[in-house]
């Protein structure tokens, strides 16, 4: 058990490697990551490197998940497009859902377009439901594995647990 129920739910789905960049909406998830063995968590310096490291872990036979703020989707996009989406790499992604009209300006432009961006690249996404950690993790891993592509669980304020 880690400090995060969402992380525990992903581990229960067979995830053995996590890479990501912190977000203030994901403090609990990252507190959980801090409790993982050193070989199972990569505190990445930018989101593109996080998803690329997940690709490496998956090639080696380990189910890998990425975690980031939705602004990181921009940094990731080229890697998702020219690595995961063409090699058929499943990638469960835990992504904060920032950018509502009350959020700071710097989160709004990409945040309010994140769903459209994911739709444009045929990346399945769902909103996390508070208290439904196991079901959300089950959907996320199955969606990524079945389609052999990235899938995104959006974590809104209050859904980080």
């Amino acid at each position, binding site marked *: 058990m880690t400090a995060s129920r969402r992380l525990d739910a992903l581990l229960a789905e067979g995830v053995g490697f996590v890479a990501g960049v912190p977000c203030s909406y994901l403090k609990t998830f990252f507190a959980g990551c801090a409790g993982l063995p050193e070989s199972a968590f990569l505190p990445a310096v930018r989101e593109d*490197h996080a998803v690329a490291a997940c690709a490496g872990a998956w090639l080696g036979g380990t189910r890998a998940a990425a975690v980031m703020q939705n602004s990181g989707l921009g940094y990731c996009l080229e890697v998702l*497009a020219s690595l995961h989406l*063409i090699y058929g790499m499943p990638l469960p992604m835990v992504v904060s859902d920032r950018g509502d009209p009350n959020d700071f300006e710097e989160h709004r432009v990409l945040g309010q377009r994140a769903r459209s961006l994911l739709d444009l690249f045929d990346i399945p996404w769902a909103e996390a439901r508070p208290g439904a950690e196991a079901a959300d993790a089950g959907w996320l891993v199955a969606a990524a594995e079945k389609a052999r592509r990235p899938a995104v669980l959006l974590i809104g304020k209050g859904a980080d647990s």
Partner: protein
Amino acid sequence: MTRAEAVARVLPLLADEDIVVAADGAISREAYRAMDRPRTFYMVGSMGQVASIALGLAMTRMERVVALDGDGNLLMGLGGLALVGGMRPPNLYHLVLDNGCYATTGGQPALSREVDLAAVAAGAGYAWARRCFSAEHAGEALDAWLAAPGPAFLDLAVDASADDPAPRVPMTPEEMADRLRAALAT
């Protein structure tokens, strides 16, 4: 020594179980032409991510992971160098085939003649990092790199002159991923 000659020189030095991540562009194509092996991952895109892909493998596998990188490629994703240096996986061996330019796209100059990549790697935390800009010492440098404690980094200068172009790897990206996954599952 051209880049293709350097690639052809390195691959036979590796053990069969070593895992290779070959950079997108000419390096992957030359690695395939020189010595295809089931444990090589051939990148076709995602420039700048050679070290990060290798790191994901090195953190989750016991075997040695060899990253065959380019100078322009590494400069695009220099954060990957910080990740390897910071995580210090002892089984990661990083080689930069440094021609000082973007050869795949027509030879436009890269900043690698101004930036000492080995010094950056050493500063990032690699256990061993060297630069070899002399062709006559390339063989010794490669041997020393592979014998060094990991993570080890070698910035090896190669001629910028055009090699005989190698054809694209005749597998789909999905076939390449599945082949490596299958080789590592046995």
